């Protein structure tokens, strides 16, 4: 079988400058930066609302995304993240990196990987509610406009990550 060679990754500094320019454009046009977790909030609110409107409106965490607006999905960050999905797909396809697979370290089973992936996602969603933003909306965008909280968040993410990295090394290496 012929193995397709993936194109190499781009230089991280070129990518960084590119994303920086996107953030500048975003502030110039809309007055705010990029985001990510907000799209999950909006999507979740609309899904819960579709299943059970009463339940969704009774929970502040969802109703905040439902009241006073036309539709929770007709939102800047939701559309932006839809774009991220499209851009990722295009780039993955043209770079030869689109492949159905479970990314994991050599020493763990697929099931272990999926359990940790699920748990990590759960912790991040919870944490992002406390911090009011994730790596995109708070660290990248807030960091660029010098929000003190964004810098506290970034430093804490690195401390949190590095403090458990050794414990988690079997997951990845």
């Amino acid at each position, binding site marked *: 079988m012929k193995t397709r060679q993936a194109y190499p990754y781009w230089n991280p500094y070129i990518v960084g400058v590119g994303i920086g320019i996107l953030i500048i454009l975003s502030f110039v046009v809309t007055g705010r930066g990029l985001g990510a977790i907000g799209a999950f909030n909006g999507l979740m609110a609309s899904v819960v609302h579709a299943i059970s409107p009463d339940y969704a409106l009774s929970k502040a965490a969802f109703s905040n995304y439902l009241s006073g607006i036309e539709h929770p999905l007709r939102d800047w960050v939701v559309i932006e993240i839809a774009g991220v999905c499209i851009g990722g797909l295009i780039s993955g396809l043209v770079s030869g990196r689109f492949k159905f697979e479970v990314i994991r370290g050599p020493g763990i089973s697929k099931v272990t990987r999926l359990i940790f992936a699920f748990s990590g996602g759960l912790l991040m*969603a919870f944490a992002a509610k406390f911090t009011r933003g994730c790596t995109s909306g708070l660290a990248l965008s807030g960091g660029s406009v010098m929000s003190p909280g964004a810098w506290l968040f970034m430093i804490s993410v690195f401390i949190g990550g590095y403090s458990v990295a050794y414990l988690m090394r079997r997951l990845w290496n």
Partner: protein
Amino acid sequence: MELAAPLKYSMQIPEVYLLLFALLTGIAFGIFLEKAGFGNARKLVEQFYFTDMRMFKVLFSAIVTAMVGIYWLSYLGFLDSTQIYINGTFIWPQIIGGLVFGVGFVMCGLCPGTSCVAVFTGKLDALAVFAGLFTGLILYAEVEPQLAGVISYSSIGDISLYELFNMEYGVLTFVIVLVALAAFWFAGRVEERIAKRTA
């Protein structure tokens, strides 16, 4: 100046064009993230094992670029910095939340934004991250009423670092650029060291 940005206000751009701009910005963002290697959880967590610090390099070169650009645009009067959104600071929730976020990040290897790129390049582990994120949001909605006091504790409002430190905007921008350049150099040295040790 007449045309002061944000253009959304000064030019009264219709919502549909803003959403189109959101889509195009998102597509470019997604391409950049994928090209950086961030659709792959194992590549991203190399940051935490010092073998490839590209997460740090991308994050900080993006912030420094945007910070310098936004500073100059407001200095030259093109961007009205009083009209742009600055994330509010909640000291303890953001410290504790950041620590937990970092733990979650190493456990799953992706953040909410990069998990989208991973899912759309076929990475099935990222689907589990999606499931975790959605479950987390449902659980949070259940416990939110009990947490109301905790999550708004130690708020200092929407101020910026240069206001907090009572510094000149430009001076602080320059200092952060210098620190970032030193950090990029240091990150390169760390990678070399680790590469030599494992060779």
